[in-house]
């Protein structure tokens, strides 16, 4: 390593999780610098999604450590991890279909997150402005009053990205953000992601190589829960082990 570990915004060391003896993630080390966009690739079952689950607390780790700034995330509850500044987008679009786009964004607005805070929450001008602003960024400013269940697949993905943006996380984790999108939607999403990754660190899981090329600072290749290769996309592509397990297919 060229830099001190404390320089990194996220330091993952020796991260391990085993499900009934099967090690889905095995002694993984991962260092994410501020403003870095890291893409994780790897064949199916490599443990990519599990790594994100471990970082955001959805799955409890068996061993290792995940340090975000000065906090040990493995000891924190999911909502505390969110408040620490880690946002997570799921692979399948997870939006509240019975609520409008506006309401979806409002729930993610970083205020009134306690039970009584939520009861007392008022939709003031600051909230409205921020929601309009985010809606514009995610191309949904015309659909604010639409039920989220009526959106197209791609729009739901954007909405979920917007729900994360409104939290303004320092570390954003996206699981296959362009999966199932049309070519046009994909292009717009790449443009959107390129814009929103400017002021924060991002971890993206993605299969689409042209998309990876577009956004990645560095690429990490996972295979069977272990780190196979890491570096620039060109470096990773040139690695014969990577070609063997992944790119060759």
């Amino acid at each position, binding site marked *: 390593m060229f830099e001190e570990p404390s320089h990194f915004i996220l330091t993952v060391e020796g991260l391990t999780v085993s499900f009934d003896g099967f090690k889905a993630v095995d002694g993984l080390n991962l260092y994410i610098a501020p403003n870095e966009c890291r893409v994780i690739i790897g064949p199916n079952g490599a443990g990519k999604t599990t790594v994100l689950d471990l970082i955001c607390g*959805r799955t409890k780790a068996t061993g290792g450590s995940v340090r975000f700034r000065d906090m040990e995330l493995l000891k924190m509850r999911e909502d505390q991890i969110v408040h620490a500044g880690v946002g997570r987008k799921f692979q399948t679009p997870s939006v509240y279909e019975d609520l409008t786009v506006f309401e979806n964004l409002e729930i993610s607005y970083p205020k009134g997150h306690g039970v009584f805070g*939520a*009861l007392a929450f008022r939709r003031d001008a600051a909230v409205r402005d921020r929601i309009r602003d985010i809606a514009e960024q995610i191309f949904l400013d015309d659909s604010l009053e639409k039920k989220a269940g009526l959106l197209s697949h791609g729009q739901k993905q954007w909405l979920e990205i917007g729900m994360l943006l409104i939290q303004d996380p320092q570390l954003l984790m996206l699981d296959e953000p362009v999966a199932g999108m049309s070519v046009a939607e994909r292009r717009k999403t790449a443009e959107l992601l390129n814009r929103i990754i400017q002021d924060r660190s991002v971890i993206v899981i993605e299969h689409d190589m042209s998309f990876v090329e577009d956004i990645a600072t560095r690429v990490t290749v996972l295979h069977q829960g272990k780190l196979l290769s890491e570096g620039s996309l060109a470096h990773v592509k040139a690695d014969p082990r990577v070609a063997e397990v992944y790119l060759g297919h």
Partner: protein
Amino acid sequence: MRLSFSASDPGLRRQIIGLALLAALLLVALPLGLDAFRLNLFGKYLCFAFVAIGLVLCWGMGGILSLGQGVFFGLGGYAMAMYLKLEASTPEATKIQSTPGIPDFMDWNQLKALPLWWEPFHSLPFTLIAIIALPVAFAFIIGTAMFRRRVGGVYFAIITQAIAAIATILIIGQQGYTGGVNGITDLRTLHGWDIRPDSARVTLYFVCAGLLLLAAVLALFVQRSKLGRILIAMRDQEDRVRFSGYDVAAFKTFVFCLGAVFASVGGAMFTLQVGFMSPTIVGIVPSIEMVIFCAVGGRLSVIGAVYGALLVNLARTSFSESFPELWLFGLGALFIAVVMAFPSGLAGVWVERIEPLLARLLRRKTTTPADPNAPEAPEPAPLTRDAAGRRPGAATLNALSTNPLPATPMTDAAARAAL
């Protein structure tokens, strides 16, 4: 400013109209139209409406199906009954007992002194606080234990049902302390005021109706707050809510506690109006019936739930007078029919069918005199249009009740259990 906002919010307007109509029915129409005996019966039905309102928040909005609301109903009912029983058990009134001054059923069970935990119920303030605090504490313990461990859905429903069974067995088994299967009977006065004559029953009816309207206002406030929208979000995408920075278990526990308080207040009013409390209103069957009241009324509509409780109980009274053994089958069939045909209950039927019809009739009436030759254009009714163009965030009755049932497995379970 606030007013203009209200006027432009169709969801709020509908709820205010609904509330006003309900208040007119409960406070004016029923008292004028019914004799004291029938009014007292309706007062009894209203007690179950408290539970139904709580279930709208817990089950309809939050997706937490509790099949043990009878336990909370019983907590409030028994707390009130204990106070009333102690007041009725003066040494003079019980001087023929071998131990005068204790409730009669304790004497029959050879108890020689009042159990220590009965003592505080000599005090009316303590009793009133207990009616709120006991269900909160109990629901908080259950809620924390279950929701922190991520127990939900059908499993939660089964556990609450088991708790209802345990509570009944406990009450029946501990006859000397609880009055056993007969319950606590022969209640007379509340702080010296006789609750048995017709005039007292009418007063109690008005207290009950007033409290119910208050509960409805409170529930509507919760439903319209961001908390209400979080409940819906949680029901549909629990993980997304959790990873948006919410402590999901805390929200579920809160709404479960709130539902428990509503049920408990209903229980206390039941004891006052009916004059006894017994384990038959605590167990599994009454708990499931309470869910049915809510489902029939519309599990997303606070006001609908009140009508659901009233109508099903009214049907029970008239039906079970003629065919007592068929009533439970009828109730089960009703529940299945509602779930299959009208998943949003009466409130859904009102919003989807009756309101557009009314609006169309009103429209025709107002346009006909002005322009008799106007074609009967199938214009969208004003209310429907309001509903479609509603403001963002207004968690309205109608918009929610038009949704399909998201929690069919749970309702299936309830349907099976009801049979």
